[in-house]
């Protein structure tokens, strides 16, 4: 009996350690990003980093303004959201309000296949199929641009918005829906005046998570958006995102400990702070939403 008790205790401790291990990963990420960026910011002024509009750490004429990389990331993510948001939300509402439960059950995992395709493959699509196709309409479109990878990335994140928003709509109590139909409202009116407002925080969570995903996306933009940091919102010219810059430096021979090496951690911590803020906001919104209906 005593041995059994001991075994129970030891197992529980081991399981607990595994759970704590995941916290150590976050601690390690923070430590690595902060310590390397600390060296970076001891050599480059923080003010220059966030205000200068040129990013040329690998050139002889060096400038360390992160803004061109930030605009690159914002531009591609914005284009992706222009595609994913209307389509994803329409799918969520259609599946929840109009489609039969049987159809919904089949089609939801099928749409999720869009998110299972490796991103390097989407990069190929953007570079080799979508860009040449768009060049047929937009004569000035450069071979590398933010429009094409933005659109392709949008297609990739459709399921994030459609599935999570559909879950949120699904969680709205049935009696709200029935009350609306009982008042003679159409499905369209019920969807937009009752269900969407009731599920709004869940829908916002899905949108924030999709933006966070787009901001962190690497391969599609690294392959198809170019590698030229440019402080612009023009979607037709080559740009560079924060993620692409990290890939570019990783592909070259940069000496460990050099300022060039530390730039990727400075770009990394900027990326981390942006996505971390979005993830935390969505976590608390989601929790609030769950409390409301559970």
């Amino acid at each position, binding site marked *: 009996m005593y041995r059994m008790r001991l075994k129970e205790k030891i197992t*529980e401790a081991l399981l607990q350690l595994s759970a704590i291990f995941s916290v150590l990963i976050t601690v390690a990420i923070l430590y690595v990003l902060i310590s390397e960026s600390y060296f970076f910011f001891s050599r480059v002024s923080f003010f220059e980093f966030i205000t200068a509009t040129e990013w040329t750490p690998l050139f002889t004429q060096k400038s360390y303004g992160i803004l061109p990389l930030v605009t690159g990331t914002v531009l591609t993510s914005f284009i992706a959201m222009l595609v994913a948001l209307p389509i994803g939300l*329409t*799918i969520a509402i259609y599946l929840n309000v109009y489609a039969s439960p049987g159809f919904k059950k089949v089609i939801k995992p099928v749409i999720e296949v869009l998110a*299972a395709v490796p991103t390097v493959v989407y990069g190929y699509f953007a570079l080799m199929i979508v860009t040449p196709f768009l060049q047929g309409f937009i004569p000035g479109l450069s071979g590398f641009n933010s429009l094409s990878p933005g659109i392709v990335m949008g297609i990739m994140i459709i399921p994030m918005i459609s599935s999570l928003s559909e879950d949120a709509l699904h969680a709205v109590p049935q009696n709200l829906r029935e009350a609306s139909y009982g008042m003679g409202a*159409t499905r369209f009116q019920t969807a937009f005046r009752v269900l969407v407002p009731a599920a709004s925080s869940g829908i916002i969570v899905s949108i924030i998570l999709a933006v966070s995903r787009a901001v*962190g996306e690497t391969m599609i933009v690294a392959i198809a958006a170019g590698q030229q940091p440019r402080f612009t919102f023009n979607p037709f010219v080559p740009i560079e995102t924060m993620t692409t810059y990290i890939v570019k430096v990783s592909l070259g021979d940069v000496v460990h400990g050099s300022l060039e090496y530390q730039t990727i951690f400075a770009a990394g911590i900027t990326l981390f702070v942006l996505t971390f803020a979005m993830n935390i906001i969505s976590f608390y919104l989601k929790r609030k939403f769950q409390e409301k209906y559970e």
Partner: protein
Amino acid sequence: MEKLFSLNHLKDKAFLITGVISTFFGLVVLAIFLANIMIEGIPRLSLDFFTSLPSRRAENAGILIPLIGTIWIMVLTSLMVIPFGVAAAVYLEEYGAKNKLASFVEINITNLAGVPSIIFGLLALELFVRFLGLGKSLMAGSLTLSLLVLPIIITSTREALKAVPRTIREASYGLGATKLQTIQMQVLPSAAGGIVTGIILAISRAIGETAPLIVIGAMLYITSPPTSPMDDFSTMPIQIFNWLSRPQKGFIVNATAGIVVLLSITFVLNGIAIYLRNRWQKQVKW
């Protein structure tokens, strides 16, 4: 009144049509992409393509090394991440339901799941490649991907455990089983289908990853397949990226053929996962 009535119905119908179009939009675009890939890539697939080493000449180059690398990554990552992920999920779901630690761990896992994969690459570059001195080895690569997919496995395992009804646990306690026995003999077997589905999806995600492996320096010219976890390696996505970044048409064709192989692996894994999930849901009617 009559007019307003019909306008509302018109909107209703219009949205129905928009909904159907939206639902199939992404899938149709994907289908066009896939058709394009298959037309370009399938003619390049031959036995030689699977058994050849890399080469400066596109027509001689093959995927032997990256394919073996991908298989290694799959096995090593599974071995490392499954025990940790399932154990953490069991703790959170079965033991730590309400304590502070569990809720902190939960916020942390949600956040980790949203950290961009390239950040895991930066972590791995400092921690595995330099600090632990693993270099650009398979071991460093699979550790990186293990950390990346750990939150996915924890989350899906928790979902599967959550689906096991209380009554099964209580019946087990009622028969005098301890907590550990209940988990081992009742809860885990009941949740197995869901757990395995989550694991397969996570591994499929891991083998499709490129960015973190590039950051740890895995894009190298390797001339022989890895034979131990400490060897340098390449994987399918890395090889595809490598070929895509070359100007010659021949390498682009190689990339499409590589994509056909990678997508086949991804879709087979996803297919198995969906099949298992459906069978599990049908079999267990609580």
